[in-house]
């Protein structure tokens, strides 16, 4: 029984106003939407609503993907691209983290490095490929250098942003215990900047993927970019789309790898 001193009045419930602004993702909707898209695409293509020469149906793309996998052609192209991405990403990441760390930790590094980064970061790195070909030749080095340059800048920025965002109270705490400078870097700064560096990995991996395709389109016989360009020139749109699917899968796998790394290394958050 509710305790009340007001008789003869009907109680009016207070209206709930706190809902919304909390979008939730449901996996089945994502899959259903994807399946619906494929079904509509397939149906439109079979009904000749779109010309299969320009947009082949998913079944034809799947067949091309299967054929290229069985013949080993896809592996040859993917292998070449992955090798370039791996080398370029590694060089760019190591150099970016080193410069970013210097910018974050030393006044000299900040004074010299920050204007350099600010000036060159916005330059599209693919625009440097002709220059890099002049410097390193048409072979692997120019493509790897393009990817390394593309990766270098976002890694440098995310590293120094990571160092800047290390909570100062943690550094003061370590200093208050007379922890030596190298140990502060190792035990405080490096773990604290890790989230930012891993975000940098995600961005730089996407950039590496874009650049490898672009560089291979300009000067390569093998690689996913070369496959796309050749298929386009020969109007083999099913193979072209298969190449695009391969890139998308590669992107998803790289993203999943970085997510796994984040789960492993940032479980403390």
């Amino acid at each position, binding site marked *: 029984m509710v305790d009340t001193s007001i008789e003869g009045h009907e109680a009016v419930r207070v209206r709930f106003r706190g809902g919304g602004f909390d979008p939730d993702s449901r996996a089945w909707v994502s899959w259903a939407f994807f399946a619906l898209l494929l079904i509509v695409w397939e149906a439109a293509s079979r009904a000749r609503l779109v010309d299969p020469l320009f947009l082949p149906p998913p079944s034809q793309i799947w067949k091309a993907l299967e054929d290229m996998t069985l013949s080993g052609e896809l592996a040859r192209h993917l292998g070449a691209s992955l090798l370039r991405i791996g080398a370029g990403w590694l060089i760019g990441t190591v150099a970016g983290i080193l410069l970013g760390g210097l910018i974050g930790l030393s006044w000299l590094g900040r004074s010299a490095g920050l204007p350099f980064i600010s000036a060159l970061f916005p330059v599209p790195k693919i625009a440097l490929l002709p220059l890099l070909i002049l410097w390193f030749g048409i072979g692997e080095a120019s493509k790897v250098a393009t990817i390394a340059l593309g990766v270098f800048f976002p890694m440098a920025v995310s590293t120094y942003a990571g160092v800047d965002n290390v909570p100062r109270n943690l550094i003061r705490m370590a200093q208050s215990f007379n922890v030596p400078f190298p140990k502060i870097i190792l035990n405080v700064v490096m773990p604290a900047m890790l989230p930012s560096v891993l975000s940098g990995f995600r961005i730089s991996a996407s950039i590496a993927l874009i650049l490898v395709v672009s560089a291979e389109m300009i000067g390569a016989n093998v690689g996913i970019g070369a496959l796309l360009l050749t298929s386009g020139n020969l109007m083999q749109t099913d193979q072209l789309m298969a190449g695009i699917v391969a890139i998308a899968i590669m992107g998803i796998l790289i993203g999943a790898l970085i997510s796994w790394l984040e789960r492993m290394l940032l479980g*403390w958050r």
Partner: protein
Amino acid sequence: MAFELVVDRIHHQFGTLSVLEDITFTLRQGEILAIVGPSGCGKSTLLGILGGLLRPTRGAVSVRGSLPRDSLNPFTYIFQDFALLPWRTVAGNIRMPLEHHPLSRAECRARVEDALARTGLTDFSRALPKQLSGGMRQRVGIARALVVRPAVLLMDEPFSALDAQTRDLLMDDFEAIWARESTTAAYVTHNLHEALRMADRVLILRRRPGRVREIVPVTIPRADRRAAAARQEIDRLYEQLWSHIRQEAQIADREMTDG
């Protein structure tokens, strides 16, 4: 051999802003000195200068006598926001200040286990800070401070981030530790009740630029301060402190609000 921490005519400026002016006092071994004053009067700055985290614009802090030889970090801070490394376990956080000292692994472990036991954290040694309540996190901060056997504890509002009940429990723990170990401490707080419960003397700072307005001794033994018999004297001291601070705090508040 006893020691004293001598604070001699400290002035401090941030740019053109004068924060502290002519601060002079002595902190004696075994004494707990509370530092109170209106917001922005430079309490935390003064604490930073006492332990060498900030360099004063003028004046000096020096030690007269000799500090205990077994102290690995004579001036040890306990922070308001705990300052725990979130990627380390409780034991890892407590071990951190020992890692750059030439201690054997066994001694390191013994010190950490001792600090865990003294702060009631033994069962939580493998927990991460995010798994702990605010009170437990501050216990980790206290254990980390105790593990180096400090000569002087420098505490920057150590309870202000905690709720009232946790604060009370933690103060009980502190009282027990202090009673056992006769610790020397400088202790910044906004809370006058806290200051009167814990301190042997209360140093009152004026509003910015902070200057020593008065140092009020609290002569009632710490163990008796919550007894009914001490109530009248504690209330009198509270009124004395508040009368010093009230007007300054009002002016400081308006200064800050007016920007």
